[in-house]
């Protein structure tokens, strides 16, 4: 019941907001212009440039888009203007405050005016918040007025232009295209933004720690000073042990996932009966859907003790968090990735090629070994590369099972640490934001990004070459 009333009040709130009114206006515009368009369509028939739907859609979009853009702009700009006005009005008081107090004052004013209880409320703050409230009222008139005016003006213009010769279909097409372009630009820009922030933060790190030390240093222990001025405890930031640990675990993972994934792909595509295939594929997909944190505690709590037990019974000393355990489980995790990617490329080898081989009296395994796999090889290589970059970037399993000790070793029974694990540990807990320790996380992130990007680009190139061969 409570849920229902909440829901209705939310709907009411939406309808009574400017956006809701614009929606209603858009619906009205659609109905009205649809009537007009159907009317002249019935009259002129084939001579009409666009179908009624396009005319109506054009008017609807004209009613909808300008006010929505206005609303978005308003909600971005208005708070800034309010803040400026408040600051201007109380300039004399603000001048006496420090930067921190200034922002505190503004925050309190804003909080109070939107009805929140503030910690430190003074007479001045209350007064300022009342001033802000009056500003907001004016703002809301502008918001409503602007929205409705825009909707009506653009709606009327569009409605009047609707006629047999209006190229409404082309205009709607342009609007749709623009919308799609904006969406893809958002995606691209965010990616670029993330990469740029990685690069800039890393540059700040390299001002503190030289690039050569980071890339070639053999020692990783990012202790930073506890108190400011403790110069001695800056720690060392050599990434080699991390890279070595990452590669060791990735190598073990690929040793597991590569053969098993590939073989199961071969079995599924060429040997399995359709019935088995139709059950086994979904099961593999379930395996791909298990959250990595589950694999993580599986590795830490089941596999690691098991390996330790075996190792001890053979007289080997095994760390309780070993690269082997993490690598094995990570390998299991990427089996579905390898097998489904390889399955795709193996299936892409034309049946006629297999027939050719069978027709010469080759057995199934001869056909696969000598015809299918060579033909699918580029695709398989790229599948392996993609899986490798997935393994390199994997975090949860290694955080839980690989340990934190930055040992430079190739012994899979020892604990190692990886780039991703170190990023996590660098950033967990309270951090001073521009210490070398924190900035090191960005440098590691950039390093990781470059490695996986390179692998992915190579994989894509290989796939492209493969495509050229068959089309």
């Amino acid at each position, binding site marked *: 019941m409570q849920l229902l009333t909440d829901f209705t009040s939310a709907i009411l709130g939406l309808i009574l907001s400017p956006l809701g009114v614009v929606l209603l206006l858009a619906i009205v515009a659609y109905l009205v212009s649809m009537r007009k368009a159907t009317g002249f369509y019935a009259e002129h028939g084939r001579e009409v440039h666009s179908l009624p739907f396009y005319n109506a859609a054009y008017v609807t979009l004209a009613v909808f888009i300008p006010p929505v853009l206005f609303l978005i702009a308003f909600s971005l700009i208005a708070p800034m203007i309010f803040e400026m006005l408040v600051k201007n009005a109380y300039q004399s008081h603000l001048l006496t405050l420090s930067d921190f107090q200034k922002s505190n004052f503004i925050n309190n004013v804003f909080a109070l005016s939107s009805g929140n209880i503030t910690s430190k409320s003074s007479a001045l703050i209350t007064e300022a918040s009342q001033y802000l409230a009056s500003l907001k009222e004016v703002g809301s008139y502008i918001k409503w007025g602007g929205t409705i005016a825009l909707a009506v003006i653009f709606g009327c213009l569009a409605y009047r232009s609707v006629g047999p010769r209006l190229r409404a279909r082309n205009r709607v097409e342009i609007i749709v295209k623009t919308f799609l372009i904006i969406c893809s630009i958002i995606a691209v820009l965010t990616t670029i933004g993330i990469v740029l922030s990685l690069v800039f933060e890393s540059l700040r790190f390299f001002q503190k720690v030289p690039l050569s030390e980071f890339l070639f240093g053999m020692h990783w222990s990012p202790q930073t000073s506890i108190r400011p001025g403790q110069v001695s405890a800056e720690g060392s930031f050599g990434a080699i042990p991390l890279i070595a640990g990452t590669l060791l675990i990735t190598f073990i993972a690929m040793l597991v996932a590569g053969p098993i994934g590939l073989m199961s792909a071969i079995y599924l595509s060429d040997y399995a*009966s*359709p019935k088995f295939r139709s059950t086994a594929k979904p099961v593999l997909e379930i395996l791909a859907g298990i959250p990595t944190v589950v694999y993580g505690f599986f590795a830490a709590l089941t596999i690691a003790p098991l390996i330790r037990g075996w190792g001890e019974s053979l007289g080997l000393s095994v760390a309780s968090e070993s690269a082997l355990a993490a690598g094995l489980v990570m390998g299991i995790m990427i089996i579905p990735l390898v097998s489904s990617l390889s399955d795709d490329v193996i299936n892409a080898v*034309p*049946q*006629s*090629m*297999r*027939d*050719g*081989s*069978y*027709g*010469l*009296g*080759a*057995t199934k395994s*001869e056909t696969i070994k*000598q*015809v299918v796999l*060579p*033909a699918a090889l580029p695709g398989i290589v790229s599948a392996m590369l993609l899986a490798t970059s997935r393994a390199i970037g994997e975090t949860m399993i290694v955080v839980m099972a690989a340990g934190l000790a930055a040992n430079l070793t190739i012994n899979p029974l020892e604990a190692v640490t990886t780039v991703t694990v170190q990023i996590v540990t660098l950033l967990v807990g309270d951090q001073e934001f521009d210490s070398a320790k924190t900035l090191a996380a960005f440098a590691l992130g950039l390093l990781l990004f470059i490695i996986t990007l390179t692998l992915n680009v190579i994989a894509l190139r290989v796939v492209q070459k493969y495509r050229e*061969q068959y089309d």
Partner: protein
Amino acid sequence: MEVQSIESKKAEQTRQVEQAKKMSPAEETASQPQGPIKMSGKDVSVFYGEKQALFDVNLEILENSVTSLIGPSGCGKSTFLRCLNRMNDVIDICRVSGLITLEGEDIYNPELDVVELRARVGMVFQKPNPFPKSIYDNIAYGPRIHGLTTDRAELDELVESSLKKAGLWEEVKDRLTESGTGLSGGQQQRLCIARAIATRPDVILMDEPCSALDPIATATIEELIDDLRKNYTIVIVTHSMQQAARVSQRTAFFHLGKIIEEGETSQIFTNPRNKKTQDYITGRYG
């Protein structure tokens, strides 16, 4: 120069067929010694799932002769051809009943090794399907699998002779290491024929081997088929009446999954017993 010679040969072949057509069936039988029965199908029915594609087909294939299968599209020619080396096994939903023999042996006998069967009954497909390997390795594929040669020199020789028989040697002898997929369509088809010959089968099945080829390449392959007949038994599916008449000694006419008529090519083309056959070969069919 070469073009001319091929065309003149083609013209000659056409003349021969014309002559053959003039001869009565009786004369024809007398003039051409019939080989023993190499393969035979008795009451062969084929089902794709629920759908029956062949209905009690009976056909005998004689040794060292070319048998052509003709008939409208979808009538089951390829299906029958694929039964002869059990290529239908590859299709999950396909079921074959009846008796098919190779030299009197049932080829669907579970004891029999299908791999061995396919080595003896080779196949050339409608669409050229060279492996993405070098030209040399394409030809050497069968011999290597079946261990037909003992050393490299012998294999080289086999590759060369197979390519020569398929009339491709002159064109590719300088680029044996290049990929087979880089050849032209007609060259690829001849490569596939050479590949089939290199395995030294007894019987070669060809499913519309010339459907993608220009007249000159077609003439080369028809010549080749005529040559191969001396040593091999050949079954060919074709949509070209002229081709069937030119290259084959025996013809079977398929219609809706049944054999309507089969016999001497000259008889089928000059004096068909069935109305449907006559309509089809004279082009009056649908």
